[in-house]
């Protein structure tokens, strides 16, 4: 039996839309940060249901999309070393680096293993003392607790053959970078529900106040998203800029404090390069000095060669990730660039805006043309 929750009830959706229509008086541009929300908005056809005044643009919240090509290159170089087993989350393996993806590296003899958790990689290191196990630690605040815990466990077990290649990024600095861009036209944000499960709401208050921008932490279901949009538009229409929590059934004000403590123990905030966006100051994590023997970059000193620039291929991911353009405005979209042969990272993962639009436009064509 199919379980249909109240969060996708058609009557509730309709009611929220009517309410939205009733309060909106002028154009507003909202950005959802999280790729999971982008996927849900596109897939559930919510973008088409919104009143014409409300435009959603899609933010940089897909870790697969923002991990720089230079980091993929480092991972590829490490995977090609004889003694190394490079472990990665499954969705990273098809992302193009400047010359190849991890998947291509594997087909050329690289040693790559897909794991569900960095803790699996720690276990692997324990079982294979003859190998150097490296975990490709990417992601936002949601994967940081797992990656930090992996380092702590390896340290406690005294493992000398485990390390992490860190490319961690943080959501609030990316929001700030978008807001302070002179071309910015975002009026409000939908905050990423699961990121806040870890970090709580604290980091958003200063941002909302400084830039006079509403931030509504939102879930992933159609009703969640519409409710989030409604709360944000209501704030905009009444001249408020507050932090609200639409997703209180999962997200607590203070987040998960134990997880925050583990992250702080292992990582410190550092500058990070974002694919398609460039360097954002203080926008990610690096391994603290105290745990440097678990930092693959320190341990192997692997440096990437050519820095890849997205413009080489004509991919406009940078503009898409900053909300300046939509995927269909890219000349390669659906032509040279498809999920099977992605030119840029946003076409790789289902959380990427280009892939979400691609799948959705395919589905539309199927229903629109019965022959």
């Amino acid at each position: 039996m199919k379980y249909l929750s109240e969060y996708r009830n058609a009557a509730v959706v309709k009611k929220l839309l009517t309410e939205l229509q009733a309060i909106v008086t002028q154009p507003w541009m909202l950005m959802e940060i999280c790729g999971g929300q982008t996927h849900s908005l596109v897939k559930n056809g919510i973008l088409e249901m919104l009143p014409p005044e409300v435009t959603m643009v899609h933010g940089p919240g897909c870790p697969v999309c923002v991990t720089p090509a230079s980091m993929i290159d480092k991972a590829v170089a490490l995977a090609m070393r004889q003694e190394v087993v490079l472990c990665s989350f499954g969705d990273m393996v098809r992302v193009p680096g400047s010359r190849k993806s991890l998947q291509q590296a594997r087909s050329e003899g690289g040693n790559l293993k897909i794991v569900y958790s960095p803790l699996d990689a720690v276990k692997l290191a324990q079982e294979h003392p003859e190998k150097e196990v490296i975990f490709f630690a990417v992601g936002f605040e949601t994967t940081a607790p797992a990656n930090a815990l992996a380092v702590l466990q390896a340290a406690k077990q005294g493992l000398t053959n485990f390390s992490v290649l860190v490319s961690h990024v943080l959501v609030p600095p990316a929001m700030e970078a978008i807001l302070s861009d002179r071309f910015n036209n975002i009026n409000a944000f939908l905050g990423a529900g699961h990121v806040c499960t870890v970090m709580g709401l604290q980091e958003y208050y200063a941002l909302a106040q400084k830039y006079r921008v509403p931030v509504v932490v939102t879930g992933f279901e159609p009703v969640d998203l519409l409710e989030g949009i409604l709360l944000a538009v209501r704030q905009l229409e009444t001249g408020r800029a507050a932090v609200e929590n639409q997703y209180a059934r999962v997200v607590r004000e203070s987040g998960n404090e134990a997880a925050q403590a583990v992250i702080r123990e292992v990582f410190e905030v550092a500058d990070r390069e974002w694919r398609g966006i460039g360097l954002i100051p203080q926008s990610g994590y690096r391994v603290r000095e105290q745990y440097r023997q678990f930092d693959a970059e320190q341990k192997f000193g692997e440096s990437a060669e050519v820095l890849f620039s997205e413009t080489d291929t004509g991919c406009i991911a940078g503009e898409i990730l900053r909300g300046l353009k939509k995927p269909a405005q890219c000349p390669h979209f659906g032509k040279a660039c498809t999920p099977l042969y992605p030119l840029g990272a946003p076409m790789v993962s289902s959380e990427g805006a280009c892939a979400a639009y691609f799948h959705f436009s395919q589905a539309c064509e199927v229903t629109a043309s019965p022959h």
Partner: protein
Amino acid sequence: MCLGIPAKLETIDEASDEFFRTGKISFGGISRTVSLAMLSEAQPGDYVLVHAGIALSVISEEEARTVFEYLKESGELEEEGLPEEDI
């Protein structure tokens, strides 16, 4: 990799060190061990959200079902990658 996987916590294995505390979860017919290092309040029978092998929050049963349905429909369950067998 960002979306948490909802699961029911079946049993807790006490470890000498809090950083190694684990529990068995089940979801959609699959069971596996996850870290409980960051969720000391979770009890057997609770539903939890698991991120990359770490349980991070206790949620209601209804929420667990909602998220599970969502993941299943959007193909995210495969993407979250159930582990491969060997090196």
